[in-house]
């Protein structure tokens, strides 16, 4: 008993699972208890369940599919553009451009979306490019950080094997850190997912989870809002775990 309250103490796997189950049960009990009365700020489990059912009837699966599609298209495009900027970073002439791109991550979302609206008129394309522009700044920042973290010894090692400077770039940075690209995507997935829901609620196109949450918000349907939040959280966690599994499965040498 004292062990689980003492800092840095090691506990068994079984005890860890029991602690986790204990906290979950406590959370559910608190949820039931605090929402049992007439007046309550947080929706009761029954309301959330009704929210789930309503959402399902309104085509929740299609909305999830639309959100995921938007997510994958944006990540794919942003990754390609970010990789170009990141791989250009070691080239002295292009270094400043790559670093300049990373600074854009401090720009506010609304201001830039105004200009995008003037250039792109189709709502879905607009959603994609708003996400791509913002994701590119974050992904480029993370990818450049990965390159900066490569120890000098790895570059020296390639040079000692008579690699030209382009071969060093190819072997050490591009091939040698390809698994890190997947990890960078995973790390930025939370930002992507959060931005995606916001973009879907600002620029209404072909539905999506953001559209649903905005609609529920408008009508103060708290049961639906929490149901949607749970769905968004679970999909986000699922994507995170899936990408991590993919990295380990594809790259045996990857031990990040």
């Amino acid at each position, binding site marked *: 008993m004292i062990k689980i309250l003492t800092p840095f103490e090691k506990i068994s796997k079984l005890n860890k699972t029991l602690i986790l189950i204990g906290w979950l049960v406590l959370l559910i009990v608190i949820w039931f208890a605090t929402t049992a009365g007439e007046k309550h700020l947080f929706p009761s489990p029954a309301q959330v369940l009704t929210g789930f059912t309503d959402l399902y009837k309104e085509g929740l699966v299609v909305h999830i599919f639309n959100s995921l599609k938007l997510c994958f298209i944006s990540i794919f495009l942003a990754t390609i553009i970010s990789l170009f900027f990141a791989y250009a970073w070691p080239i002295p002439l292009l270094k400043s451009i790559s670093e300049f791109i990373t600074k854009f991550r401090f720009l506010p979302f609304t201001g830039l979306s105004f200009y995008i609206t003037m250039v792109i008129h189709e709502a879905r394309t607009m959603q994609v490019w708003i996400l791509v522009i913002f994701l590119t700044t974050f992904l480029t920042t993370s990818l450049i950080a990965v390159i900066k973290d490569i*120890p000098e*010894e*790895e570059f*020296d*090692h*390639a*040079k*000692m*094997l*008579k*690699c030209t400077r382009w071969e060093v770039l190819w*072997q*050490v940075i591009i*091939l*040698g850190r*390809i*698994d890190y690209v997947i990890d960078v995507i995973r790390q930025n997935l939370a930002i992507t997912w959060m931005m995606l829901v916001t973009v879907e609620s600002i620029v209404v196109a072909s539905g999506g989870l953001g559209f649903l949450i905005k609609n529920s918000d408008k009508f103060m349907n708290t049961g639906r809002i929490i149901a949607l939040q749970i769905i968004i959280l679970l999909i986000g966690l699922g994507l995170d775990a899936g990408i991590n599994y993919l990295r380990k499965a594809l*790259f*045996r*040498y990857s*031990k990040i």
Partner: protein
Amino acid sequence: MKHEYKETLLYVENLSVAYDGNVIIKDISLIEKDVVRDGVDYTGQVIAFVGRSGRGKSTFFKALTGLIPLHSGKILIRNFENKEPNAAKSVNEGDIGFVDQKYTLFRHKTVTQALKFSLRKTTLSNTEKDAKINEYLKEWGLENCADKYPNELSGGQRQRTAIIEQLFSSDQFIVLDEPFSGLDVGNIAEVKKSFELLSNTSDYNTVIFSTHDIELAIELAQIIYVIGHPTVNGKKENYGTIVAKYDLRDMGLSWKDYCDDHQKLSKEIIHQMMIS
């Protein structure tokens, strides 16, 4: 055992390296020749550099391997492509192999892929390359590691792979920066075996290494250089240079079991290190 000196393999003259006007090493000169012994097929050269931390050993190694530019001086090595006696060439990046303390390898290549990559600039056919790789894997005890990535290898296996890789790519010169640091007894024995293998393979193989273990340097090397801060006109300078040289071959201490004379030499080297 009788030995004689043949061709010059390595020639360093007045080598100096400075960063932003700050001199790190200065006036380093040395000549290493091929040594041949009676009744022994191959005798590679094993040269040790010792000295206290911050005296410029690593900088010297980086300059020697062409990784950093020289402020002044020159480095020449035997040009093995030219059959003329004593044919020499200036050192370029990759001519002298370099194995760092961490035994760095390409993290995305298996042992076989890494060795194949290091042979890419040779004129060997693919079949010959495979045969050469298999021969070395067998000889260096790495047969079971052929398809393993660096993160799946032990320290000793990584080190052997790194040495073979550099041996395949460079011109028979290998520099090892503190190859014994942080190794346990078993791994030290493995590295010693690697040195033996290198020495017994070719007369021209030249191994240059740095260490803080003086006894190990005496046991393995035929010549020991002490790098330290010199005292000039009574004033201790702030740059590194060779302050003492001990040729164990001429002293009759090479290729023989450890004895009292080796112990005396060890004390002498430690003294030199402490005063520089």
